[in-house]
């Protein structure tokens, strides 16, 4: 009976699967026919509209009998954007301005995702998307424009597809490339408004300078951890990014989400606010957030708006005596200026001589051979809690010097043969581990060696099931 039952259900399953397949094919076919007919209908309506416009022009009074329309919104647009049109303070004029505007969103990540969703939905005329990255699984918790099906594919492609599926009437332009001084002027010059949704300091300076040179308003948002910031720069005589921050912060002061963590909804909120500010500027309504900075604090549920300085007459880029030209912009080295890379690739330091380092594979061999050793993991405690190698002890880099006795003690305990135990140091990517080895060797632990590439290389080269984050 049981065997029969199983056999029966296997047959059922294959019948269901094949029926599903047939139905899906039929559905796709119907969808295609529907969308072709809709397109045909749109074209016909457009031709009729154009004819109406012509007759309107020649004889407005007669045409006004069937409908009196004093704007250029199509019947489809009137219906699609009706809730905007019903807003007295936005209305036909606001929507009409929006439909004629062009907005460039740089970055299709945590900030860009919600910004793009709303900008596409609200009916911006032309929407540009710049990003060079691909969609990854660890993006999904905050980059809500992407779906799992697009993992491994370019973010621009994924974001553009979603935007088009929300609003097929918006012209979406894809720039699947990193923004650099060599292409920034050409790309930004084609848009009315720029939205900075990037994740690093050099890009922020570069985009702000480019907007000053081209005279474009810049809606700048940022989010990290549980905090967000939002400002409109270079608008109506307001300050630029450099007026506020003439000196870039030191590299350590500007961590990226990839290193520091971010609660997904925080960039979501800032990205939505960026869309709102861009829509206000494009629609020419309200009071943009220029000369003011919004500070969002998720943990305490507080939003503060701080009045910031006006344009600085001494600003090196937008100041009265500044002669920052397009050519100077093209030649400016933003990575050098901010001491940080434009690309999202993490920096790979090389601080130690070769004999002070071993690969993750070599370390695996040492374990397999039963070599007496101590493994110190110098990542912060909350990293250690995510995942760690067996038998490693966690001493974060910041407290390494005061906790040296713990290492001495562990080495003594491991030293069974009396010939000494080795000391290895690991971190997430292999940078802090090198700093730790430098420190340890200075303090007399001469045999200390670091594992090249850290836990990332362990996951890559030794144990593919080791969780990466």
């Amino acid at each position: 009976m049981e065997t029969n039952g199983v056999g029966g259900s296997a047959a059922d399953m294959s019948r269901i699967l094949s029926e599903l397949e047939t139905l899906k094919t039929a559905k796709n076919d119907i969808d295609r026919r529907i969308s072709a007919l809709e397109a045909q209908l749109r074209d016909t309506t457009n031709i009729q509209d154009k004819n109406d416009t012509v007759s309107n022009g020649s004889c407005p009074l007669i045409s006004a009998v069937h409908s009196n329309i004093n704007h250029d919104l199509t019947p489809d647009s009137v219906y699609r954007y009706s809730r905007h049109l019903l807003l007295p303070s936005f209305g036909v004029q606001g929507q009409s301005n929006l439909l004629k505007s062009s907005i460039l969103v740089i970055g299709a990540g945590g900030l860009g995702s919600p910004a793009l969703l709303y900008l596409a939905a609200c009916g911006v005329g032309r929407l540009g998307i710049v990003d060079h990255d691909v969609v990854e699984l660890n993006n999904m918790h905050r980059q809500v424009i992407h779906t799992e099906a697009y993992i491994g594919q370019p973010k621009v492609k994924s974001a553009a597809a979603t935007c088009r599926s929300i609003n097929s009437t918006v012209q979406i332009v894809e720039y699947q490339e990193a923004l650099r001084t060599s292409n920034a002027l050409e790309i930004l010059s084609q848009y009315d408004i720029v939205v900075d949704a990037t994740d690093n300091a050099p890009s922020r300076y570069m985009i702000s300078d480019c907007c000053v040179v081209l005279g474009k308003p810049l809606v700048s948002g940022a989010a990290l951890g549980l905090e967000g910031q939002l400002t409109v720069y270079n608008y109506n005589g307001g300050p630029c990014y450099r007026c506020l921050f003439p000196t870039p912060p030191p590299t350590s002061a500007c961590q990226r989400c990839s290193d520091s963590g971010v609660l997904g909804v925080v960039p979501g909120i800032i990205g939505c606010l960026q869309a709102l500010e861009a829509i206000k500027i494009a629609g020419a309504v309200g009071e943009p957030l220029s000369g003011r900075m919004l500070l969002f604090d998720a943990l305490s549920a507080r939003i503060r708006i701080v009045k910031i300085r006006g344009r600085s007459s001494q600003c090196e880029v937008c100041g009265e005596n500044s002669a920052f030209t397009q050519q100077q912009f093209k030649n400016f080295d933003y990575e050098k200026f901010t001491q940080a890379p434009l690309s999202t690739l993490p920096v790979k330091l090389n601080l130690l001589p070769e004999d002070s380092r071993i690969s993750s594979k070599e370390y695996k061999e040492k374990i397999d051979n039963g070599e007496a050793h101590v493994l110190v993991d110098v990542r912060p405690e909350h990293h250690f809690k995510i995942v760690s190698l067996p038998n490693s002890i966690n001493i974060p880099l910041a407290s390494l010097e005061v906790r040296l006795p713990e290492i001495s003690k562990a080495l003594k305990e491991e030293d069974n043969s009396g010939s000494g135990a080795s000391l290895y140091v690991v971190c997430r990517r292999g940078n802090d581990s090198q700093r730790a080895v430098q420190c340890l060797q200075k303090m007399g632990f001469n045999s200390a060696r670091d594992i090249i590439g850290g836990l990332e290389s362990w996951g890559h080269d030794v144990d593919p099931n080791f969780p990466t984050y």
Partner: protein
Amino acid sequence: MDVTDREIKTKNAECKPAENKGSSVQIKVLFFARARDLTGLTELPLELSSGSTAQDCLNKLVARFPSLEEILGSMVLALNEEYTNESVIVQDKDELALIPPISGG
């Protein structure tokens, strides 16, 4: 900018009760972004002798949290939610905010 700064000073001076002169003032320091990481605090009450400037506050803060030094050159300083500079004199119950830029997204 000078005009704005003078305006802030005047406004603060007007709000300040005369009998406070000569005694100390208590202000609240607000930390944002990296300043929060470095101090481990979101805010801190700070007592200063009256007539102290924002720079005096910063000096006092750096003495207590030496790592704050790294962001001093690159942050927005706001007094009572308005842009200010280091030379402004702080008044009793003022809120001084240290706002370094966030770059993430």
